């Protein structure tokens, strides 16, 4: 596969490490009353769609950036590649 890195351009996916569903950005509030339940869902349950999938890849043999790919799990077509940091911020993550 070729991942079109938003800054570096097309690179062989072999340079990257795949983590999985981008829902892992949405880490629950540890102080919530049902934190255990929320962390269980966060840590273990996946949509696992047959189709569009937002997922995290790490450019380990490159610029060390985490990326969010929108990739089709049936065709492998990649329609979007974003810097995960930007995605995380846009989803309201802070510090």
């Amino acid at each position, binding site marked *: 596969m070729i991942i079109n890195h938003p*800054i*570096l351009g097309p*690179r*062989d996916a*072999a*340079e990257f490490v795949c983590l999985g569903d981008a829902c892992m950005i949405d880490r629950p509030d540890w102080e919530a009353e049902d934190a255990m339940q929320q962390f269980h869902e966060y840590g273990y349950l996946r949509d696992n769609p047959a189709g569009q999938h937002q997922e995290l890849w790490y450019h*380990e*043999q*490159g*610029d*060390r*950036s985490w990326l969010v790919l929108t990739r089709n799990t049936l065709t492998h077509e990649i329609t979007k590649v974003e*810097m995960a940091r930007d995605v995380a911020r846009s989803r309201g993550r802070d510090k």
Partner: protein
Amino acid sequence: MPEFTLTAEPPLMGLNETFGDMVLRAPADMAIVSIALPLGGEEAALKAIKAAYGVAMPEVGQMATSKGGETLMRMSMDQGFVVFTHPTPDANAIVNAKLKGKAYTTDQTDVWCALELSGATSRDALERICPLDLHDAGFAVGEAKRTMMEHLGTIIARTDTDTWLLMSGSSSAGSFLHAIETSIKNVS
């Protein structure tokens, strides 16, 4: 007088080999210091870099060379390297002083080992291990990229039409040299 003296033994020290039209050598006294741009302090840091080196920090994947011969290499959005010739182990202090604390620096001199490969057929040799497009269309002079060659993380920079600077982890310098030499021998 101290009782003991330490001697430097960089892993590829003094290497200089010729294979047909190709020359493979290890640059001497190459100091490398990483510069990280503080979050929220990027502009100040870039300004400090420009002030210190007379050239701006280049775009990611590019190199820029100062009048003093230092090369700035931007490896990612918030991090770059300054590469310069300097024999003693105080490179970090020098860069730090130049940047006046506007960026975070880390000495990377000993993290890497470096090889310079030059010659008209050097690209044919590198084609055997480097997954990147090494032709002009994909790799211009002045670009620097990080990738993987023979299971080794490697930075490859095109410093001239037929000259490539290759950097990889210093602990695996022997395997790195072996990989490059094998590529050269396989095409010559």
